[in-house]
């Protein structure tokens, strides 16, 4: 499927990710990466007690054409990236993704689907979904 070098890179990458996950665990942050090569767009999910943030690295898309929807705690993002059109001359490399894509991301169950916002900056789609009050840790004061 892949050449030897590619295979080596991938396994090294996986190993690195595993290490990074351990580092993340040590620092008690809650960061999930989905960074497999060939998947477009790559997705990162970062959660804290207030909200869940989903980052999709989707450079060069028409953000207005994105279809972002959420049903309960399932977020789905559908869009398309146009291929660079080259009418004259020759193609030396064509590695960049083109065509339609769809990612479905299951979020924690306590997200509030009515409080979602999205932005697109530097080719990264950021979707923040607020979590319900009840799910936030509450500090109980002793009087």
């Amino acid at each position, binding site marked *: 499927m892949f050449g030897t070098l590619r295979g080596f890179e991938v396994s090294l990458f996986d190993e690195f990710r595993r290490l990074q996950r351990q580092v993340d665990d040590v620092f008690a942050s809650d960061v999930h990466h989905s960074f497999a090569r060939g998947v477009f767009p790559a997705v990162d999910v970062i959660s804290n007690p207030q909200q869940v943030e989903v980052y999709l690295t989707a450079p060069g898309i028409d*953000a207005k054409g994105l279809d972002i929807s959420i049903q309960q705690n399932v977020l789905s993002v559908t869009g398309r990236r146009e291929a660079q059109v080259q009418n004259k001359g020759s*193609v030396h*490399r064509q*590695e960049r993704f083109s065509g339609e894509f769809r990612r479905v991301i299951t979020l924690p169950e306590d997200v509030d689907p009515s409080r979602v916002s999205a932005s697109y900056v530097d080719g*990264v789609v950021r979707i923040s979904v607020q979590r319900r009050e009840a799910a936030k840790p509450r500090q109980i004061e002793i009087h």
Partner: protein
Amino acid sequence: MSISAEVAGNLTSAGVNGRQAPVTETVLRPAVDIFEDAEGVTLYADIPGVSKERLNVHVEGKTLLLEGTVQPAGGSQVESASTRYRRSFALSRELDPERIEAKVKDGVLTLRVPKRAENRPRKIEIQ
């Protein structure tokens, strides 16, 4: 041909000390499209999360180097891991590195490298 790809290390794990410095760094090789026409070469590179200020396009001798750092998203939680894009290309002699044009929009870098005047086809007008 004109631009051939060569890549230095795909990954580094930088053990940087100091409170502000990232603990780990991932170096990614951006995906590119390269097209050639009679007047020059156009390169598109995916560098999501890299703003204009954090992008470096550098020519040294025959080597074109693209380097960009991803703006850390989401504040303190992702400071432990930072991402950088880096890829270098060898420019052939028919290209003119003095006249490279670069722009970045929505995480896509577009580079236009024209051919030297003597390597471009000349249309001769009939009087």
